[in-house]
């Protein structure tokens, strides 16, 4: 399983090279990777029900491992990710043929595929989180692929920020869940459902995990990034919407359903949020004229439906969720690719400019028609089968309200299916249709294959019900389930309801053709204040807060930073000192004359520095203070420190000299005098504090253990007689490493500051 997860990552590495070497054949060779994974998964269909695991130690000290598990649910996802992935890679080869950045595109796409495979196969919560974040990153790169467009950059950032924020919540939620369930393995958590639900951390864990899932799966009110993600090239949209990314949140909810499901909080939240998302998505889809945006909103709605179905945590719900998951993946993948064909060949995807494409693009039309039928749940398509299962779930979940929600959704879906399948293709030829022609074979393989599967599984649901859907539903429900999928059901009243919904949907479509434009205009001001605008406002507010606090803390004046730093040091240390009982020692008898002399000179130099009226005098006096300190080091037997101090003083003079000649006005101006009293007070207080501190230290008995140990260990363990150096380069080498990194970083920051000022001057 590790190989399966790693293979796309490895192929991502070689993708640019393949594109350079093989040109248009690169997509065929790259498609072999997901193709092979698909075959691998098909060969393991029998073991889905039992489940198979693989554990590779990763951070054994924290009991974190690269644990993978293949069961019904992850198996279904692996099939979708690799199967649709194969078609998407082939499709992208045609769609982006000749694109200058094709190599980069495949890097991102394969990265995304690998992350998604890892996500669904992960059995360790930390591993799952890592792959989860990887999918966010990869989708950021894919959505922003056309980085020259500002809308693409905004959409990518929005997707990253929303899913990334959710990811943080998810991490916290997963850790809480692991604590509550007592294990880092998902497979353990699933069977520990009762312990988790009874645990005090259940509610916080649930809320956090839901936040992660809702942001990822574009549930209301976090859905705004998904339509924006339409900025991605169409192959990405097809992949993102059908099998990957947005399904991750649904996957996680389904995965954790046995552990978390069954409580009122879980069921209500998922039903309400899923229901709102499902219906709002459909209604917003009706208002769009961009083919891809219509499909995007139906994806939002489908995700809402999946959350809605997972909510009640019933057996029927589990069956309906996995059946709809498969149905949606097949039709949505096909519809996006077909929409891409229209866009690619007719030059627009605006419904107002499209009609009569059927002559030019018959194959694309056929794939669209079949897939739309599946979306609407028309008989003989897979959508019909899954709708029957869904209705059974709705009835089990409590009858009237769920059933009416689903019926209403059917009605809207029929109208949308008409917009997607009929409007662009039938009727009078529009201007764009005259120029259009059928897409190349590489771009037809995908939609045709997926549409055929929608039809095939619709006619013969037994092909998937036992082998794929039953193990997946069992994994969601947490107990073995059979899935009975029938093409023909005995007639009952719900069937009548469905046909009423079909008729009403068709009527709505016809009516809508005439009224849509007016409603779009009327609702535009309302919709422009939706969550998408909220995202903009939140981002602008964050930026304002950031610049406000930057202005507060970073005035850009060195003397303020220094004053603030030392004031805080003095206040905090003094408060700590005087809270305890402070004893001071005055070892006056041990003072040597030379110390007094050095001290007097240093003190005098400090006073001169404080009173200096010219910069040169101030610098010279400060240099004297430094030399005085170096002498004191010398007197107390610290030659290393003393040499360092001397050298630093020398270099400071060099640096200051370089700066001084560039400063205007040799004299310190009157403006600088005002804070001088304050600065002198802070400096005096700092000095006083250090004196008190040292006298206090002297009053305590000296603990020589550490220095004695260094003196003893230095030669036998580090072969050095200079203890200071031995400490620096051996005993505490990691500290020193940190320090030289600081030196390096400070130099870079200084360089940047100098360069930035030079650039400002140039601009002036």
């Amino acid at each position: 399983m590790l190989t399966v997860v790693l293979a796309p990552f490895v192929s991502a590495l070689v993708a640019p090279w393949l594109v350079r070497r093989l040109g248009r054949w690169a997509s065929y060779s790259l498609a072999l990777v997901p193709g092979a994974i698909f075959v691998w998964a098909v060969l393991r269909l029998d073991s889905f029900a039992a489940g198979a695991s693989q554990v590779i130690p990763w951070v054994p000290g924290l009991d974190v491992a690269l644990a993978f598990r293949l069961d019904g649910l992850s198996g279904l996802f692996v099939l979708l990710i690799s199967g649709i992935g194969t078609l998407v890679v082939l499709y992208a080869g045609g769609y982006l043929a000749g694109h200058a950045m094709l190599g980069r595109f495949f890097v991102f796409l394969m990265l995304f595929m690998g992350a998604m495979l890892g996500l669904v196969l992960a059995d360790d919560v930390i591993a799952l989180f890592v792959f989860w974040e990887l999918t966010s990153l990869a989708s950021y790169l894919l959505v922003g692929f056309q980085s020259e467009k500002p809308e693409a950059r905004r959409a990518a950032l929005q997707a990253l920020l929303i899913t990334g924020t959710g990811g943080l919540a998810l991490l916290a939620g997963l850790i809480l869940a692991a604590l509550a369930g007592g294990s880092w393995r998902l497979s353990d958590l699933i069977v520990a459902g009762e312990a988790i639900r009874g645990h005090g951390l259940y509610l916080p864990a649930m809320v956090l995990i839901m936040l992660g899932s809702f942001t990822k799966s574009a549930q209301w009110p976090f859905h705004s990034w998904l339509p924006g993600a339409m900025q991605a090239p169409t192959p990405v949209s097809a992949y993102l919407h059908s099998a990957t990314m947005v399904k991750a949140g649904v996957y996680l909810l389904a995965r954790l359903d046995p552990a978390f499901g069954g409580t009122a909080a879980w069921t209500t939240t998922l039903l309400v949020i899923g229901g709102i998302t499902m219906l709002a998505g459909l209604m917003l889809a009706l208002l769009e004229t961009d083919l891809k945006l219509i499909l995007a909103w139906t994806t939002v709605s489908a995700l809402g439906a999946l959350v809605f179905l997972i909510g009640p945590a019933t057996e029927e719900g589990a069956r309906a969720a996995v059946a709809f998951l498969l149905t949606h993946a097949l039709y949505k993948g096909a519809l996006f690719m077909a929409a891409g064909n229209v866009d690619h060949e007719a030059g627009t995807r605006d419904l107002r400019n499209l009609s009569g494409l059927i002559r030019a693009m018959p194959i694309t039309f056929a794939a669209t028609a079949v897939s739309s039928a599946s979306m609407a749940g028309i008989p003989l398509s897979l959508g019909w089968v899954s709708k029957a299962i869904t209705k059974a779930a709705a009835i089990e979940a409590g009858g009237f309200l769920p059933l009416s929600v689903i019926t209403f959704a059917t009605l809207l879906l029929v109208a949308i299916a008409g917009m997607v399948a009929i409007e662009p293709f039938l009727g009078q030829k529009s201007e764009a249709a005259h120029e259009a022609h059928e897409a190349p074979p590489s771009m037809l393989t995908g939609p045709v294959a997926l549409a055929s599967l929608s039809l095939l599984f619709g006619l013969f649901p037994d092909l998937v019900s036992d082998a794929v859907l039953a193990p997946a539903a069992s994994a969601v429900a947490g107990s073995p389930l059979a899935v009975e999928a029938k093409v023909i059901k005995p007639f009952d009243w719900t069937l009548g309801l469905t046909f009423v919904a079909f008729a009403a949907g068709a009527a709505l479509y016809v009516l809508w053709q005439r009224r849509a434009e007016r409603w779009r205009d009327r609702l535009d001001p309302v919709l422009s204040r939706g969550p998408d605008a909220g995202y903009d406002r939140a981002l602008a507010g964050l930026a304002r807060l950031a610049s406000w606090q930057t202005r507060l803390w970073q005035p850009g004046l060195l003397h303020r930073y220094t004053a603030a730093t030392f004031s805080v040091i003095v206040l905090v240390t003094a408060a700590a000192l005087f809270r305890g009982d402070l004893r001071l020692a005055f070892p006056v008898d041990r003072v040597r004359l030379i110390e007094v002399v050095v001290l007097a000179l240093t003190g005098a130099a400090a006073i001169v520095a404080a009173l200096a009226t010219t910069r040169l005098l101030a610098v010279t006096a400060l240099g004297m203070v430094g030399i005085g300190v170096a002498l004191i080091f010398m007197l107390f037997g610290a030659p290393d420190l003393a040499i360092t101090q001397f050298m630093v003083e020398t270099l400071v003079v060099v640096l200051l000299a370089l700066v001084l000649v560039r400063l205007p006005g040799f004299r310190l101006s009157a403006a600088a005098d005002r804070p001088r009293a304050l600065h002198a007070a802070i400096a005096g207080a700092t000095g006083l504090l250090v004196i008190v501190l040292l006298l206090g230290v002297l009053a305590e008995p000296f603990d020589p253990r550490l220095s004695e140990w260094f003196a003893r260990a230095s030669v036998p363990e580090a072969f050095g007689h200079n203890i200071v150096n031995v400490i620096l380069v051996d005993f505490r080498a990691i500290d020193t490493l940190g320090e030289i990194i600081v030196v390096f970083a400070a130099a870079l920051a200084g360089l940047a500051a100098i360069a930035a000022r030079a650039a400002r001057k140039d601009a002036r």
Partner: protein
Amino acid sequence: MSSLILRAGTRLLAPMMLLFSVFLLWRGHNLPGGGFIGGLVATSAIALQGIAFGPASMRRTLVFAPATIAGAGVLIATFAALPAALAGLPFFTGLWLKLDLGDGAVLPLSTPLLFDIGVYFTVIGGVCALIAALEEEPALEDQDMGG
């Protein structure tokens, strides 16, 4: 700023200071010295060169860009930890190689020495980068920094 005396003196002093800095680096493990001090002495030598002959000459002396030297120093210091890590010992365990040069002379080489060399170059590169950049910066107009 540049005088004949300064230039003549620098020609004599700077190489000796550089040599002295290597000496300090080398003996640092047993006697006062070490990479940090050595690096500062070498920096002084190069700064002197810069004052006497200008920043261009200073950059020529350094051969590589100062920031690159500083980065290389950090890398060298990090590499000093690798032998121990590869040998399965705790990070930064000092490893020694005592080369027998014959005649009873032994040349001790060690990862702490390598580490100190890294420190040496980081200090030189970091400080020289700032000095060179400041020397090259054109003088500012009066209104730029009032007071």
